[in-house]
């Protein structure tokens, strides 16, 4: 039995910890052993029993701080796990969608195809955002709860897109005149396997969201910086590992010079997110139109018809991206500043 001062400290720590029972038991056992060792040493140095216990407790640190560090470690680990399983599910989904639309002779209905087309883009974009954010902080001892929340939101939207598209695909059943086709069976089995991967990823996301909420209960900090900051930090960290030190420094200096260039500052994409959105939307639309024309060839009715088809494709793609940006931009932390729920 430890002394009164140590027992009181352990009781405070137990009340402050927001960790699973297994971690809690181990944390408290280790804290007890540590405090007893420290008190013994202080007694050996000549302190009385109460003073020795008080000194051990003081050196151990405030229970709220220790509990916060545990919450940080768990929330960070859960977000990394959510990223691994989320990425696996989105990649499986994208592969399924690619095979189904490009290679399979069996096709879903127009509606299921259209849903899959946009769902793949939404899932890949959100998965990319969350993966960049998670990778950027992979080696950090702690990540602000605001940033973890953004990582989780990205996975929520990505997996939501996967689930909606899979639901449409499975409901459709690739049934349009393809009953009995081995392709139809294979695609439905693959869609079901992807649904299982998505369910595992959703479980990882739920755990991560819970751990993030627990961390926010200790310290709710804003995400800090934007998605381009995350991308830059990740790129520099990767370059630092593969390039010689001088080359990395030169690349960083070049990136800073480009950012400071008059033309880049005049466009000011970072302070005008809608300009950034318009640029991305037009580039994506042009890519879709070019891919369509390259794949299908020019329209038989002539150049004007080809241009009209391309313009319609650009408009549809760009409008879809702008709509997603308007709906999800703030939620995903790519439009406007992140506001902590507690500071709002």
């Amino acid at each position, binding site marked *: 039995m430890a002394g009164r001062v140590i027992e009181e400290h352990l009781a405070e720590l137990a009340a402050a910890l927001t960790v699973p029972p297994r971690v809690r038991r181990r944390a408290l*056992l280790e804290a007890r*052993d*540590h405090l007893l060792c420290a008190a013994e040493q202080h007694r050996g140095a000549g302190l009385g029993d109460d003073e020795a216990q008080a000194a051990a407790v003081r050196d151990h640190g405030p229970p709220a701080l*220790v509990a916060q*560090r*545990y919450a940080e470690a768990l929330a960070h680990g859960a977000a990394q796990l959510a990223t691994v399983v989320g990425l696996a599910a989105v990649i499986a989904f994208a592969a399924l969608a690619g095979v189904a639309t490009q290679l399979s002779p069996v096709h879903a209905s127009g509606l299921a195809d259209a849903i899959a087309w946009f769902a793949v883009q939404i899932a890949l974009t959100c998965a990319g955002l969350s993966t960049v954010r998670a990778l950027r902080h992979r080696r950090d001892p702690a990540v602000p709860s605001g940033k973890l929340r953004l990582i989780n939101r990205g996975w929520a939207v990505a997996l939501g897109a996967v689930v909606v598209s899979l639901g449409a695909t499975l409901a459709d059943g690739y049934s349009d005149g393809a009953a009995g086709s081995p392709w139809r069976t294979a695609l439905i089995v693959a869609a079901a396997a992807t649904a299982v991967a998505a369910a595992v990823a959703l479980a990882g996301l739920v755990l991560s969201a819970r751990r993030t909420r627990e961390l926010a209960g200790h310290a709710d900090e804003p995400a800090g910086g934007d998605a381009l900051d995350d991308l830059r930090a990740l790129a520099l960290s990767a370059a630092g590992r593969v390039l010689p*030190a001088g080359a990395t420094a030169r690349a960083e200096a070049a990136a800073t010079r480009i950012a400071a260039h008059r033309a880049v500052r005049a466009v000011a994409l970072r302070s005008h997110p809608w300009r950034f959105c318009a640029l991305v939307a037009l580039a994506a639309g042009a890519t879709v139109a070019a891919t369509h024309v390259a794949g299908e060839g020019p329209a038989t009715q002539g150049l004007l018809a080809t241009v009209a088809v391309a313009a319609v494709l650009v408009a549809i793609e760009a409008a879809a991206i702008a709509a997603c940006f308007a709906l999800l931009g703030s939620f995903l932390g790519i439009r406007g500043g992140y506001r902590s729920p507690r500071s709002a």
Partner: protein
Amino acid sequence: MRPEALKGHLDALLLAVIADGPAHGYAIIEELKRRSAGAVALAEGTAYPALHRLEKAGLVDSRWSTDAPRRRRVYEITDRGRRTLGAEREQWARFTAAVESIFKGAPWPAG
């Protein structure tokens, strides 16, 4: 040294201490304080979440020891932990060399 200055380096410092041989939490923290002549002052309880994190990352192993009068967790570095520590040491040496160069006004990298 302020605790917040330590935050980004605590994992590597703990690894460096554990690399010298298996030890329990209290001994690791005492050794950290001894090697820094007391300059590294952290809330000692915060070292344990860091040890758990290192274990989850596969950089250290741990087991309950029954040699002591009470149950205590003993930590031991893994092969992966040694490789990570080597990389951290290298990165730190490059960083300190660059900062030294700046303070002395010499170009970097030298040679």
